[in-house]
C-alpha cells in the first residue's frame, strides 16, 4: 500500500497538500482490490520522490520470525482524542484511511475478519523478510541516500532475547543495518546489560531525555556529557549528499515508573520538553541542519501533545503505543507544523519516509507505512542463517509443543485479550488465588484457533527480566485503588500523564469502566466471579506477575505452562467481561471489551 503525502514545510502549503493527498489516495485501494483480488502486486513499488529516504521500524519486540498479530478492537480516545488517529478501530479506521474491507491492508491494519485474513494473507514481519525489503528500498533511494532507524523495544519480547539479555537482537540489528535507535524495554536488562549490548551495537543509541540522577552525577557515574548530565548521545546528524538531517532520540519517558527502579538506579527520565526545545534550537541554529526528526518512544498521544509545544521538529517517527497509523497527523505549533507518525509493532510494518531537502528546510515529504507481508517477500538468506544459528541452541527447549489453542488467542485491547484471560486463569488456578492481575502489555503475538502453542509462544507473552509471580493479601479497597490508578495511566485526558500500555487485566473479578469519568471515579460494579460485590474492607488472596517490587515466585511462564499442561488445551474460564460505559459511537470502540 502506498499512502503518499506531499507536503512543504513549514506553513500553509503542508496542510493543503496533506488534505489533497488524503482525498486523492482513497482511490488506489478500491481500484486494486477490484482488479487484482489483492495479490499485493505493486505494493512495494514506490515512485521516486525527493533526495533522501528514512526507513523507520519500531516495537518489533524481538520477533525475528514472521508473526500473526491482531490489531485492537478497543482503543478508546477520550476528550480531545476521541475519534482521532490513533483512536480508531475496525470500520472507522478503514473509512478514515480509505482502505477496502477484506483487502490486505484491511487485514494488516485492523482486527476485522482477522482469522479469515490470517488464513488468506498469512504472517507479517520477520527479520529475514524485513532485510529483503530494507535492501530493496535502500537500493532504490535517490543517490543511495537512505538511513534505517529503530524506535526501540527491539531487544525484548522473546524467550531467546530474554535468555540472551538482548545479545541475539543486537546481532540481528547489526545485520539489518540499523543506524540509530532509542529505547524502552532495552533498559530492563539493567544499566550494565544495556551497556554490554551497546558495546556490540554498530549503530548509535540516542536519548535526549535520560540524565544522571544528582547522586550518580556527584559520584561520577559514566555519562555521554558530564556537563549536562546526559547519559547518552542526544542526537546524530546524518549527511545525505550536501543535505543534513538531525535525528534526535527520545527514550520512553517513564522507564523507572513502569518497570522496577532497580534496573536503572543512576538514571532519571521524563519527557523533557524544555531540554528538547533547546536541543532543536541548537541543531538548527549552530549545526545548521536542513531538517529535524524526533525518533520517539513517547507513544502517539504524548507525541501529539509534544508536537504542539515544541517547535522546529519536522517529523516525529513514533512508537511505543503500537499504533499502525497509515498517514502522519499534522500538528500546529508556534514554529509551524510537525508531522506525527506511529509505525505499529512486531515487525508488521516498515515506514518509508522520502524527504525533499532544500538548504535549511524540508521542501516536501512522502510517508508510507508498508505492511511487511511474508508471502510477498523473499527472505534474505544471510539473515535466515543468522536467525537459525541464534535459535539452534534453544531449539529443543523453545520448540516444544505445550498445548493447542481452542479459540483465537490475542492480547491487544484496552481492557482484555483472550491471551491475558488465559494468563489470569493460570495465575488463579495454579496459585490458588481469588483474584489475579496481569499487566496490560501491548506486545505478545497471536495464535489462531486450533493452532499449536509452543514454549516459544508462551515466552512471547511473558518473557521479561521481572516475570516472577507473587501471591499477596490485598483489601478490596487496595485492589480498587490499583485498578483506578492504572486506568488513569491509560485514560487521563492529558497525554503527558499517560504511560502507554493497556488496562491491567483481572481474573476472578469484573467491573464497569467509564473512561471519560474523572480520575479515581472511572470504575464501578466491581464484582467477584460468583456475583458477590468486592468488599472494600475484606482481604482477598491476589496473584499476579511483573511487579515493580522484587518478588520471589517462579517465572509466570512456568505457571502458564503448568496450567496448559493439565489438559494440553487452551480453554478459557467463563469470567464476565469488562463492561465499558460512555463509549457508544466512539470510533475507538469496536464492541465487547
Amino acid at each position, binding site marked *: 500500500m502506498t499512502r503518499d503525502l506531499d507536503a512543504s514545510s513549514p506553513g500553509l502549503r503542508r496542510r493543503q497538500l496533506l488534505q489533497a493527498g488524503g482525498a486523492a489516495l482513497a482511490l488506489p485501494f478500491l481500484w486494486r482490490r477490484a482488479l487484482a483480488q489483492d495479490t499485493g502486486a505493486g505494493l512495494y513499488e514506490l515512485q521516486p520522490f525527493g533526495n533522501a529516504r528514512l526507513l523507520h521500524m519500531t516495537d518489533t519486540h524481538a520477533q525475528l520470525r514472521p508473526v500473526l498479530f491482531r490489531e485492537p478492537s478497543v482503543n478508546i480516545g477520550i476528550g480531545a482524542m476521541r475519534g482521532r488517529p490513533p483512536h480508531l478501530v475496525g470500520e472507522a479506521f478503514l473509512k478514515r484511511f480509505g482502505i477496502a474491507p477484506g483487502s490486505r491492508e484491511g487485514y494488516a491494519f485492523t482486527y476485522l475478519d482477522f482469522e479469515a485474513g490470517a488464513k488468506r494473507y498469512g504472517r507479517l514481519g520477520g527479520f529475514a523478510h524485513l532485510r529483503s525489503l530494507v535492501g530493496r528500498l535502500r537500493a532504490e533511494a535517490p543517490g543511495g541516500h537512505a538511513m534505517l532507524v529503530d524506535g526501540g523495544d527491539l531487544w525484548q519480547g522473546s524467550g531467546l532475547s530474554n535468555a540472551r539479555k538482548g545479545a541475539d537482537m543486537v546481532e540481528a540489528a547489526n545485520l539489518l543495518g540499523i543506524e540509530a535507535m532509542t529505547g524502552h524495554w532495552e533498559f530492563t536488562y539493567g544499566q550494565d546489560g544495556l551497556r554490554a549490548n551497546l558495546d556490540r551495537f554498530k549503530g548509535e543509541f540516542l536519548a535526549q531525555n535520560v540524565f544522571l540522577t544528582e547522586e550518580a*552525577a556527584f559520584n561520577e557515574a559514566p555519562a555521554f556529557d558530564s556537563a549536562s548530565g546526559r547519559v547518552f548521545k542526544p542526537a546524530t546528524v546524518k549527511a545525505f549528499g550536501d543535505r543534513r538531517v538531525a535525528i534526535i532520540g527520545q527514550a520512553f519517558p517513564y522507564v523507572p*515508573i*513502569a518497570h522496577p*527502579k532497580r534496573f536503572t538506579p543512576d538514571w532519571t527520565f*521524563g519527557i523533557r520538553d524544555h531540554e528538547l526545545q533547546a536541543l532543536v534550537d541548537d541543531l538548527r541554529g549552530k549545526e545548521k541542519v536542513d531538517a529535524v526528526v524526533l525518533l520517539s518512544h513517547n507513544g502517539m498521544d504524548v507525541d501529539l501533545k509534544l508536537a504542539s509545544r515544541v517547535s522546529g521538529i519536522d517529523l516525529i517517527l513514533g512508537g511505543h503505543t503500537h499504533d499502525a497509523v497509515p498517514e502522519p497527523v499534522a500538528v500546529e505549533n508556534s514554529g509551524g507544523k510537525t508531522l506525527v507518525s506511529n509505525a505499529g509493532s512486531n515487525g508488521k510494518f516498515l515506514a518509508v519516509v522520502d524527504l525533499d531537502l532544500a538548504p535549511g528546510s524540508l521542501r516536501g515529504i512522502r510517508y508510507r507505512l508498508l505492511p511487511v507481508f511474508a508471502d510477498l517477500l523473499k527472505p534474505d538468506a544471510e539473515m535466515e542463517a543468522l536467525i537459525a544459528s541464534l535459535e539452534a541452541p534453544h531449539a529443543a527447549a523453545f520448540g516444544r509443543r505445550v498445548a493447542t489453542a481452542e479459540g483465537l488467542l490475542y492480547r491487544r485491547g484496552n481492557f482484555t485479550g483472550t491471551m491475558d484471560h488465559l494468563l489470569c486463569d493460570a495465575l488463579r488456578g495454579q496459585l490458588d488465588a481469588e483474584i489475579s492481575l496481569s499487566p496490560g502489555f*501491548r506486545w505478545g503475538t497471536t495464535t489462531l484457533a486450533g493452532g499449536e502453542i509452543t514454549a516459544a509462544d508462551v515466552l512471547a507473552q511473558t518473557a521479561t527480566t521481572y516475570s516472577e509471580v507473587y501471591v499477596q493479601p490485598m483489601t478490596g479497597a487496595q485492589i480498587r485503588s490499583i485498578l483506578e490508578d*492504572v486506568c488513569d*495511566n491509560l485514560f487521563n485526558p492529558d497525554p503527558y500523564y499517560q504511560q502507554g500500555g493497556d488496562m491491567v487485566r483481572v481474573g476472578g473479578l469484573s467491573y464497569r469502566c467509564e473512561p471519560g469519568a474523572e480520575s479515581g471515579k472511572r470504575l464501578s460494579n466491581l464484582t467477584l466471579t460468583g456475583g458477590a460485590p468486592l468488599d472494600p474492607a475484606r482481604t482477598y488472596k491476589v496473584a499476579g506477575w511483573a511487579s515493580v517490587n522484587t518478588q520471589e515466585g517462579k517465572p509466570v511462564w512456568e505457571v502458564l505452562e503448568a496450567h496448559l499442561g493439565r489438559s494440553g488445551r487452551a480453554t478459557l474460564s467463563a469470567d464476565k467481561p469488562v463492561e465499558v460505559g460512555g463509549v457508544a459511537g466512539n470510533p475507538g470502540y469496536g464492541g465487547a471489551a
Partner: protein
Amino acid sequence: MAAYDSKMFDRRFVLRAAGLGSVLAATGFGFPLRASASTAAAYPADAFKQKGEADAVKTLFGQAATASDKVKLDAPEIAENGAVVPVSVSTDLPDVTAIAILVAENPSALAALYKFAPGTPPTVASRLKMAKTTPVIAVVEAGGKLYSATREVKVTVGGCGG
C-alpha cells in the same frame, strides 16, 4: 578523589556551589537588613502550619498570587519516586524577594520558602515528598506583588508498561 584534578570545575563542583548558594538564600542570609512589610525575618511557623495552599500564601504574604508565565516551575509530570520529587523554580521577574513552593495535597501545603537578598539570582531547587497526585505551586514575590505557576505531579503505583 584527587583534590586538584580538572573535575574541580565540572558539574559536581557547580552542584556544590549551587547547593551552597541555596543554603545561603534559604537561611535568609542578609534579609534582616531589609525588613519589608510582607516578609518577616522570623521563621514563618504559622504559614508552615496552614493546611491549604491558599491559607499558607495568605499567611506568608498577606495577599493572593496571580498566575504568570514569567514563573518557571519545573517538575516531572509523573514522579519517579514520590518521596523525593525534584522541583525547581526560576523567574526573570525583577526585584524578587521570596519564592515559596507549595504541595496542595500534603497535610501542610507549604513545603519550602526561600528569601532573596538583592542581586541574588532567583533560582531554587528542592526535592519534595508527596504521597499522592497533587498540584505543586510556585509563588514568587517580586516588587511587592505575587506571581504563581502550577503543575500537577502524578504519583502512581507504577508498573504495567507497554
